[in-house]
């Protein structure tokens, strides 16, 4: 087994003023080529864990490791980490800020020290990968919801990160757009990168992920291939897959629908 690129080691975190901790000993390892679906109920700590991966939150206990070494939280260390670990936010409106899509896509590379020419090249490459080349001169507010998501994704891809952390980016998308986004994430993993996608979508977890990591009350309680989660009655229940047996749709129809 290869060494993990990114590792969360027994992280504890409580937001200021909160009664309960958001993370309570959360551990997870992310290796090259892996596609991990991070599942769990609302409030189980998925987004908080992802924010730690990019160094936006600093654990109160525990360590985040990049290629085996504990990450530092000074400017230089964070700059290196953020060039390697990209974070895509759930709401693209909170990520897109620039006057045009091209400017927004070039923002990350410029911050990482790329020259203007290189940043422009990377922005155009990322736009091509996300099929939004025709939108480069548009302002973000003129885009549709799906286009905004693609622009946000391209903005992170332009930084050429190895690990992509995606916070519920497929929720609320139509099946075609969702397939498009998942195929971009697939390409990233196929090129040796890794993806951690937090999601509530059972079909995404089952059909797209190579592993599912289940979070409960601030901990990662189980990491296993999707088959294990969907065949074991215990784990099916804990990811909420058994709830579908109560509905009119048969479980096979629901779970095997292609994304």
């Amino acid at each position, binding site marked *: 087994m290869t060494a993990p690129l990114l590792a969360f080691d027994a992280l504890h975190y409580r937001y200021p003023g909160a009664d309960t901790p958001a993370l309570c000993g959360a551990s997870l390892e992310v290796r090259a080529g892996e596609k991990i679906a991070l599942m769990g109920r609302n409030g189980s700590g998925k987004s908080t864990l992802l924010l730690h991966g990019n160094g936006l939150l600093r654990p109160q206990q525990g360590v985040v490791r990049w290629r085996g070494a504990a990450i530092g939280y000074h400017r230089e260390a964070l700059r290196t980490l953020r060039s390697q670990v990209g974070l895509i936010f759930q709401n693209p409106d*909170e990520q897109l800020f*620039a006057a045009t899509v091209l400017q927004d896509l070039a923002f990350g590379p410029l911050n990482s020290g790329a020259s203007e020419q290189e940043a422009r090249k990377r922005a155009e490459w990322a736009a091509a990968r996300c099929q939004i080349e025709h939108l480069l001169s548009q302002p973000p507010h003129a885009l549709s919801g799906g286009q905004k998501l693609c622009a946000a994704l391209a903005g992170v891809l332009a930084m050429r990160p190895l690990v992509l952390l995606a916070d519920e980016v497929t929720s609320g998308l139509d099946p075609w757009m969702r397939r498009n986004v998942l195929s971009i994430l697939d390409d990233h993993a196929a090129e040796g990168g890794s993806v951690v996608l937090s999601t509530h979508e059972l079909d995404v977890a089952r059909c797209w992920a190579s592993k599912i990591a289940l979070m409960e009350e601030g901990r990662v309680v189980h990491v296993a291939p999707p088959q294990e989660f969907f065949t074991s009655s215990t784990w099916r229940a804990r990811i909420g897959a058994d709830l579908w047996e109560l509905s009119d749709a048969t479980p096979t129809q629901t779970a095997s629908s292609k994304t």
Partner: protein
Amino acid sequence: MHRLDAYAHAGRLRHVHPLSKLAFALAIILLCLILDRPQVSAAALLWMAGLSILWGGATPGFVLRLLTAEGLFLTLSVVAVAVQIGPIGQEGGWSTTITIASPAQAGALLLRSFACAAAMNFLALTTPILELVAAVQRLGAPTALVDATLVMYRYIFLLLETLMRMQRAQESRNGYAGLTATLRSAASLGGQLFALSWRSGRRMEMALQARGYEGGALSMLTPTYTAPWSWPVIASLVFATLLGLARL
């Protein structure tokens, strides 16, 4: 606002340097003010509206609506020039005076104001405001001010969308069914928008940091502009027309 912005991004003059368009519009305004001839103002108005439509790509209806909205304010302002109201001697009371020359003066002033407004409309319809702001930065405007304008402009659209969504949600539950409900809904809408913009601002800051922002000026590409050959030709033609009319 959405339409104005859409025209500015889609028009054929989008790739002309913003400072060039700004200088053109300001020159038209200056000519109208200095030459002070109704025929010059009328020609400038026609040129600016025509260029906004034919070259900028705006629909005639939209240009007309913009001018009508501006015209309401302008007309109200020039009424004071046409009609003088003042006290009558020591006996008390007020008089309304219209001289032979005052309606003509008011008309000329109105025409000149319309021409200036049309020049500004031309600039707004052909130049995305943020490109103009960025260009002004290169003339020495403070970076912090320019960055704040950039983020605020983006936020105006986000808040407008949120405002419309929230207002629709309130309406669907009879939030504006009577005066009391309207006041209550409007007040809570204002409060919620304030809280929401604060939370959104915090999340946007995190998103910027996630892409390597470390404070200070926002890293941006230097835009490139390519003016079509026809731009200086048309601009010269406009100036020539106005100067020629001034000699008549």
